């Protein structure tokens, strides 16, 4: 039987995977700090005898779109967003460093400064930050964390620590299977960069829902095309069967 059916099937199957990726972007449309994943198809040529007519489709997630999402003002002192191309560092449950653009920071019962999932926020030296009992706390433009101690007088701010702010080339970042963005192994060390942060705000997900919706429709139609090819291939083989049938 002709392999046309298989080629069409590969198209349909990969479009279905792409639709799942698009749905994931859409599902995370209100996850603060979420970065959408790109999706591309690639022609995967098959070597073999005869004509080169077997080129299967392959769906891939080549990269993550690190462009900024919208900034939403929350007024909470410990909600922070890095400006422009900057990232701040957190420690993942695996113990390594991951990079985020926004964090809704919390002070744990033992004073550890963590993000909303409980991952420690790292300082310039790459060490988790610990906050002593405080009256008030503030994050400055350059990521400096200062606080008024619980037993302090008036509003005298004391500098506590500074966030680890870096500006990696986005090509050096990849999103792992746990959803954390890390530096590629071959990227080398990153220096603390001159990045400014905004406190009292969070960055929304950078998913453009209109775009995702159009992509969804487009993928649906492409899928139908592939199925139509499968149906056509069926008609073809039926036709040839009937031509060859012996009365």
């Amino acid at each position: 039987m002709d392999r046309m059916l298989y080629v069409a099937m590969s198209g349909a199957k990969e479009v279905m995977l792409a639709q799942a990726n698009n749905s994931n972007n859409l599902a995370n449309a209100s996850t603060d700090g979420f970065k959408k994943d790109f999706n591309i198809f690639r022609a995967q040529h098959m070597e073999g005898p005869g004509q080169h007519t077997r080129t299967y489709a392959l769906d891939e997630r080549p990269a993550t779109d690190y462009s900024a999402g919208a900034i939403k003002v929350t007024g909470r002192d410990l909600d922070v967003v890095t400006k422009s191309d900057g990232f701040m560092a957190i420690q993942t449950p695996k113990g390594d460093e991951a990079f985020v653009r926004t964090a809704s920071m919390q002070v744990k019962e033992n004073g550890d400064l963590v993000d909303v999932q409980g991952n420690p926020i790292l300082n310039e030296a790459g060490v988790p930050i610990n906050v002593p009992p405080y009256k008030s706390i503030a994050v400055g433009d350059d990521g400096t964390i200062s606080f008024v101690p619980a037993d302090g007088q008036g509003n005298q701010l004391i500098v506590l620590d500074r966030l680890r702010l870096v500006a990696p080339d986005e090509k050096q970042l990849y999103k792992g299977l746990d959803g954390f963005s890390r530096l590629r192994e071959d990227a080398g060390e990153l220096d603390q960069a001159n990045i400014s942060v905004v406190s009292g705000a969070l960055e929304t997900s950078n998913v453009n829902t209109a775009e995702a919706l159009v992509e969804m429709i487009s993928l649906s139609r492409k899928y139908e095309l592939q199925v139509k090819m499968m149906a056509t291939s069926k008609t073809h083989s039926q036709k040839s069967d009937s031509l060859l049938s012996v009365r």
Partner: protein
Amino acid sequence: MNNALYVAKTGLEAQQFRLAAISNNLANANTYGYKTGRAEFNDLIYQNVRQPGAQATQDEANTLPSGLQLGTGVKAIGVQKIHTQGNLMVTDNQLDMAVEGKGFFQALDQDGNLMYTRDGSFEVNQNGDIVTSSGYLLEPNINIPQDATDISITSDGAVYVSQPGNTQQVQVGQIELATFINPAGLESLGKNFYGETTASGAPNINNPGTAEAGSVLQGALEASNVNTVEELIGMIEAQRTYEMNSKAISAANGMMQYLNNNT
């Protein structure tokens, strides 16, 4: 089966959760001392459908450059309480108190456990004890004498009463405030009360005006810190995102339907 279907389902659930959190905030927009809750989300783990760098053909130079990792959706990880100061409303009621700062009033429940609240609409019960509006005793207990004509509470929490035949005001008690290192970790008990948890840490008890407790303002109440405009915007956003996710379900469904009908 179809991944897209399940991924979009998680999206629907998340928005439904968000709407529930928003509705609760809006419903409590007029609750004294209520702190707004913010729904927080997380992307779920990614599924490795094709490993980047895997061999595409036997030819060693032909490896997959990027692979395919599929996200599996979104998860609501909780409602974070935002403990910012609510607006102060002057009521001129002598037993209304508002805290300017981080402190919580303490009250005893029926079993004698401590509960914490920002709602300072206190009253006096039949014995003269100061109780919360739901009838729980303020801790430490303060008794207002029957013949008291006037109650005054200083910003550092000392409670004085005036009595007939006495030109001097008499101190009858001292209000104490509890603070927590992580107020977001407190458990909401309902009735405007919070309970201590491991996440919140142990309470630090101080007199108002000292340490980080904040000061007490007599004759005022703290309104909820719900920003109704923000909540309404959130509601619209949640609804639209819900609609888009339900579109994703019908798209995935449509694809499968088409396949079934045409092969």
